[in-house]
């Protein structure tokens, strides 16, 4: 017997619509990934999405729950998000392993949709990064020059790379691998080269970074495609502006201040904004409703925390990219943030028992 309680009308929003809107918002980034990395992108995205849904189905089966939830789009979205954070040359079994991590360890062990503390896609990515540091930091030149050496638009070449690994295509892959801008700047600094020189050596261009023609993960390279999707989500009101704004503004502010202090040690703000997974994290990972705060003020703090951590890890940490660690670390703080950032209730002068 369902609970029949007022209100009897409903606005018509559903979990599936929400998830589908995010998947739709990731379409530009996915298309860009396919344009940049050819069939490899197609293989990774489909494998990851399919594995996630299968893993979800298995988990639900094992727990004796309704398997209808497989079709709510949340598993598919996790798969897509994970795929977009992976480097294009990852072999199939790592993709499969990552997808299983995402669903089983990232989501279902907590009790399924809505109960996970961490963003499933990001936690899977971190597990992969720690388990396979080499493969997870192998980047290739997108498009252009790469095509002459390894033609990723050729389905056979891409498939052998995806299925059998770089050995299958005779190590020609080495010819097109390169560091990501963030990695390059970090390694150059360790050998005493300043940011300005490092970027000149790298042939770095803001326009390329904005459009997506720098080395990086499948869906992280094109800030433009991610912005288009993010703006769609904002317009559709799937996400609010608080987290992306606070996140990006904090990173930009920190970068600007420190860059003004020492331009050789600290990278400029625009570089930070366009580099690595920041855009993807700001619009799609940090805004994952399940693992982010619900109150506006909480969201601002959450975004700020992500921004500070991202900049610190990028600048002082051992890893060149800090966005995913930042978001995961802030995920832990969400229940606390939510508790202390409740809005002032109508007619109450102060939040009298915030501490209870």
């Amino acid at each position, binding site marked *: 017997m*369902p*609970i*029949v*309680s*007022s*209100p*009897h*009308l*409903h*606005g018509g*929003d*559903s*979990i599936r*619509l*929400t998830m589908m809107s995010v998947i739709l918002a990731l379409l530009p980034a996915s298309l860009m990934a396919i344009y940049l990395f050819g069939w490899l992108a197609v293989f990774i995205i489909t494998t990851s999405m399919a594995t996630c849904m299968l893993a979800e189905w298995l988990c639900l089966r094992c727990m004796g729950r309704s398997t209808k939830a497989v079709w*709510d789009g*949340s598993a598919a979205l996790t798969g897509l998000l994970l795929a977009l954070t992976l480097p294009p040359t990852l072999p199939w079994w790592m993709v499969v392993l990552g997808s299983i991590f995402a669903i089983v360890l990232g989501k279902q062990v907590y009790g*399924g*949709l*809505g*109960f996970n503390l961490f963003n499933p896609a990001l936690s899977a990515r971190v597990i992969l990064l720690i388990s396979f540091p080499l493969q997870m930091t192998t980047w290739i030149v997108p498009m252009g020059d790469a095509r002459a050496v390894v033609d990723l638009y050729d389905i056979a070449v891409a498939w052998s790379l995806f299925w059998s690994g770089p050995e299958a295509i005779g190590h020609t892959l080495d010819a097109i691998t390169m560091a990501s801008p963030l990695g390059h700047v970090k390694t150059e600094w360790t050998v005493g080269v300043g940011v300005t020189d490092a970027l000149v050596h790298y042939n770095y261009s803001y326009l390329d970074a904005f459009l997506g023609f720098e080395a990086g993960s499948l869906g992280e390279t094109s800030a433009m495609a991610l912005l288009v999707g993010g703006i769609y989500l904002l317009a559709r*009101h*799937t996400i*609010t502006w608080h987290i992306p704004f606070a996140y990006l503004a904090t990173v930009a502010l920190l970068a600007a201040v420190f860059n003004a202090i020492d331009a050789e040690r600290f990278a400029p703000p625009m570089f930070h904004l366009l580099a690595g997974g920041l855009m993807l994290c700001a619009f799609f990972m940090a805004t994952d*409703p*399940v*693992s*982010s*705060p*619900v*109150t*506006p003020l909480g*969201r601002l703090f959450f975004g700020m925390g992500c921004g500070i951590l991202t900049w610190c890890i990028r600048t002082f940490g051992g890893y060149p990219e800090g966005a995913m660690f930042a978001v995961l670390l802030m995920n832990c703080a969400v229940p606390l943030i*939510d508790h202390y950032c*409740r*809005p*002032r*209730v*109508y*007619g*109450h*002068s102060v939040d009298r*028992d915030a501490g*209870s």
Partner: protein
Amino acid sequence: MPALLKRLGQVLGWMPAGFFGGIEVPDRKLTAHEPIRECPVPDVLILPMKQHIGEQCHPCVHIGDHVLKGQKIAATEGYMAAPVHAPVAGKVVKIEEHRIAHPSGLGLPCIFIEPDGSDGEHRYEPWADWETRDPAELRERVRECGIVGLGGAVFPTFIKLVRDQHHPINTLILNGIECEPYLTTDHRLMLEHADEIVRGLSILRYMVGARECVIAIEDNKQDAVEVMRQAVVRASLTGVRVIAMPTRYPQGSEKQLIESITGKQVPAGKLPVHIGVLCQNVATARAVYHAIEHGRALTERVVTVSGEAMPRPGNLRIPFGAPVRFVLAQCGLEDLDGVHVLHGGPMMGERLRSVDVPVVKATNGLLALHEEQIHGLNAEEQPCIHCGHCGEVCPIRLVPNLLADHCRNDAFERAEAYQLFDCIECGCCSYVCPSSIPLVHYFRYGKGQLAQIRRAETFAEESRRRSEARERRLAREREAKQARRRARKASTPAQAEDGEG
């Protein structure tokens, strides 16, 4: 885009300040152009002893008594209460418990009246000269006539009509918002009885001494705005503004309307009078006019009988106590198969499990909807994904999803700390929830459980106090007894000595 411009207008102050949150709900005012029609008198009227918020009344007539229309049949000495009057002349046939429209499904003692077709009517003395009378006298009349807030909250009206030096009333707001979908009773009343409403406004204004009056109507009822403006001009009143408010649910809620108009919030646990505001529904104002100028008690009201499953929807003037089944039949609805009847609007109303309940003072609508229109029957509750939409629309600024979690987990103390009791149950949170969580249901559950816990605590406290008092009394008595015994012991030998001596 219009919504965006509207929002911009509110931010820049071109439009009324507005309230926080809220939602756009479908209009569905099917009966906006249906003139008010008279509902026939049924064979028997069932009058519950409590049709207001507050204390229950007890019958002051007996079985077999003949009563006149407008005669008081139930009353109480309690302060927060409203007496009940006979809606028609007839005979009291029985007084017994009967089902009423209440979520608990429990009944209340009811007086059953069989109309005898005569037109005997009891009226209080009409006071056309109310301007010369003491406001306290008028207030007593409002109380005696059983008038309660007809917007749906049924709060006894006289309680709010106080003149207090500490809290003078500056603004009198007449609420013609009617933000629930389907409902058109206030709309029709304003169109058809604008002058009576304005008279009622004048009386209320005189009673509380308000300087400024605002008649607030949502801008989806432009015709009513026009008619009310003309009525105000006809009555040549000064300091009365008729304003069209941007349509947004739940603007008709008293606290939200006050925030919309004055920009001020009613402090928690206080009444609007504490910030110098009095808010009354337009139908209540009209009832006050009838009570003062015609000496008529509140015995009927206009009800919107509507819904997609209603063959002949309309706005009916219905005597209290008419069984819902009878009213539905008047609108052509007899076969209730696959039809669900709501008491009230679709946002805050309650689904009736039986249509044998009577129409009461709180009945502002009776809606017949098809099964597929009732969301609760067609949706399965899914886990919360913490999207936070509920908090974005909550006009009270609660965090509904966390609050619902606490209620569901029986963490009632926590729920109270999250201001559970400030929830007005408007249903905005449930309306936007993508997981179809019946949040309001959990809040009601939490409130009910907390009330029970409080009662139990009070009871335990009482028992403890009583038992301690008994201990003390016993100790005192023992003490006294011993003292007497000591005194006797002390005096007896003395007497003996005296006797011998």
